[in-house]
């Protein structure tokens, strides 16, 4: 980190704050400190908390797709597994501390992810994508068909118990947000350590040249399965946040193929193989429909009903994805980096 913070210029060595550690510090202070003081319930419930859950899911998928190079269209299936596991564990093991509940739910999602990761040992690219699609449909079908998972609720929709950690009730909008933020901070830190570790390098090696990775002794099969397990664990935890911190209900329809694509888009728009990318992508995906709705109302007034909104969302999002894939495959992260470098360059010339 220290050599990042030092920047050599023509005039000699100049100490400059690197954007990474400084920016993260500021961001954390703002994220923990500001919303509880100023945000409305609407801001928490409609924007901030779902943003955190989706960013976490994006982070999980990014390990698998961005770092390890394995395409998956089944992300929301693993969110569902996490959510249902946490619900059932809480229901059937009363008194289980919630943090332990989350951990176990993540492990259940990891186990299911491992199972559906097995085809990756033989398939790649398009064929692997199709096999993860099978996970998506199968998991959704199971939760629809087997009433036990939703405690035989006739509607299939179940309400989760109110959030509380170590006796501290966190059921307010701000409480649920802060809880989600805590989980996301902890998981992101662990993921950062992972991608910087030799195992993280092995994931990228696998993505960039599988044969060379095998020849130098990287245990390719083990690393691939690890990528599926870790990714599914994180996406499972994101599912728990989605159900317990955001919606406060669980139903299979909330974890459909649309959601899987949404998470994939987050990763593509944000930037593959970048931790920031998941957050940037999730921010865009959450804020963008709201902006579009405001804009549509302002321009078209009453003509802009919910049907038109949904359609225009899909069209604009589709165009956005295509634009990114063609013009900036490295996503918002790369755009931001370039902008940052330009600003720094200007300052340096001025100073």
């Amino acid at each position, binding site marked *: 980190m220290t050599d990042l913070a030092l920047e050599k210029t023509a005039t000699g060595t100049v100490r400059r704050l690197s954007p990474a550690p400084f920016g993260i510090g500021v961001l954390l202070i703002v994220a923990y400190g500001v919303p509880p003081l100023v945000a409305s319930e609407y801001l928490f419930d409609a924007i901030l908390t779902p943003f955190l859950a989706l960013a976490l899911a994006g982070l999980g998928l990014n390990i698998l797709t961005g770092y390890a190079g394995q395409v998956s269209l089944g992300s929301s299936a693993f969110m569902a597994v996490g959510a249902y596991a946490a619900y059932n564990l809480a229901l059937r093991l009363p008194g289980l501390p919630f943090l332990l509940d989350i951990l176990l739910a993540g492990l259940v999602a990891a186990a299911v992810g491992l199972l559906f990761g097995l085809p990756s040992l033989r398939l790649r690219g398009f064929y692997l994508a199709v096999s993860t699609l099978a996970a998506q449909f199968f998991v959704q079908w199971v939760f629809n068909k087997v009433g036990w998972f939703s405690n035989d609720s006739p509607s299939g929709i179940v309400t989760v118990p109110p959030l509380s950690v170590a006796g501290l009730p966190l059921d307010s909008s701000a409480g649920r947000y802060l809880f989600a933020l805590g989980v996301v901070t902890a998981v992101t830190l*662990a993921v950062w*350590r*992972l991608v910087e*570790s*030799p*195992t993280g*390098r*092995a994931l*990228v*090696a696998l*993505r*960039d*040249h599988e*044969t*060379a*990775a*095998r*020849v*130098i*002794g*990287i*245990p*390719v099969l083990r690393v691939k399965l*690890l990528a599926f397990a*870790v990714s599914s664990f994180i996406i499972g935890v994101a599912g728990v946040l989605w159900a317990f911190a955001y919606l406060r209900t669980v139903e299979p329809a909330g974890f459909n193929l649309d959601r899987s694509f949404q998470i994939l888009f987050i990763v593509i728009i944000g930037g593959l*193989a970048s931790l920031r990318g998941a957050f940037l992508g999730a921010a865009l995906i959450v804020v963008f429909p709201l902006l579009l709705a405001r804009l549509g109302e302002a321009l078209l007034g009453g003509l802009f009903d919910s049907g038109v909104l949904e359609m225009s969302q899909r069209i604009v999002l589709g165009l956005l994805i295509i634009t990114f894939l063609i013009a900036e495959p490295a996503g918002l992260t790369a755009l931001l980096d370039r902008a940052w470098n330009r600003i720094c360059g200007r300052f340096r010339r001025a100073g």
Partner: protein
Amino acid sequence: MPAVLSEPVVPPANGNVPSALAVEALSLSFGGVTALSDISFAVAPGEIRAVIGPNGAGKSSLLNVVSGLYRPDSGRVWLGGHSFAAVPTDRLATLGVSRTFQNLALFKGLSVLDNVAAGLSHRLRAGVLAQVIGLPAARRERAEAQAKAEELLAFLHLDDVRDRPAGTLPYGTQKRVELARALVSRPRLLLLDEPMAGMTLTEKRDLSGHIRAARDDLGATIVLIEHDIGVVMGLSDRIAVLDYGRLIADGTPDDIRNDPVVIDAYLGVAHDLEAGEGI
């Protein structure tokens, strides 16, 4: 299947020294195409052995069989005292064998240092949790790998590009990084598939020096596929010549230079050679 055939000992390359690599009656075909047909030869420890031959002769196929990427239809490969019908690629590094590829095979998204350090992957023992938490053992083995990688960067004059993503480097430099990644584990046997293809004359001269140093200073036995006949003659102790999957000659550079069969099949008119031209 015959009952018990007495296992032959490792075929000696010369005298009584066991060879670093030997192949015995290797055959391999793809559909109707014969890539290798009944190939046998041995490489002595410390030797630089070139493998030459026209395009499609089976040179890369031979290295792929030796590194276990292809499974031969018949025959055996001897590596470090073990004999294999199919070499286990996963254990290749542990057996002390490294290789480079004819086409660039770097990890484009990783830095040069990480690419080279990855060449020590087979030595890592710490589990993923130990790495994430940063337990002392995990930190130590990583620091060791990085220190060894830095040594190799210095050896191949790659310090300047240490932190650059490998994919952004010029072709010749990427080839050198791949050599560093193969050498970092101090292999007993190094297999190089056209390491100089597409390089300039100066780059070729530099790389020849590095390859010789890998043998002299690091003690590696080297099997080298190369088309530039001038380089091959200057660098190698012995040369094996393949043509249509058959081994048509195997000898010292002088033997090969004057072998009428080789001249016919590959080298062409003799005076081309004296001009030192690449073919």
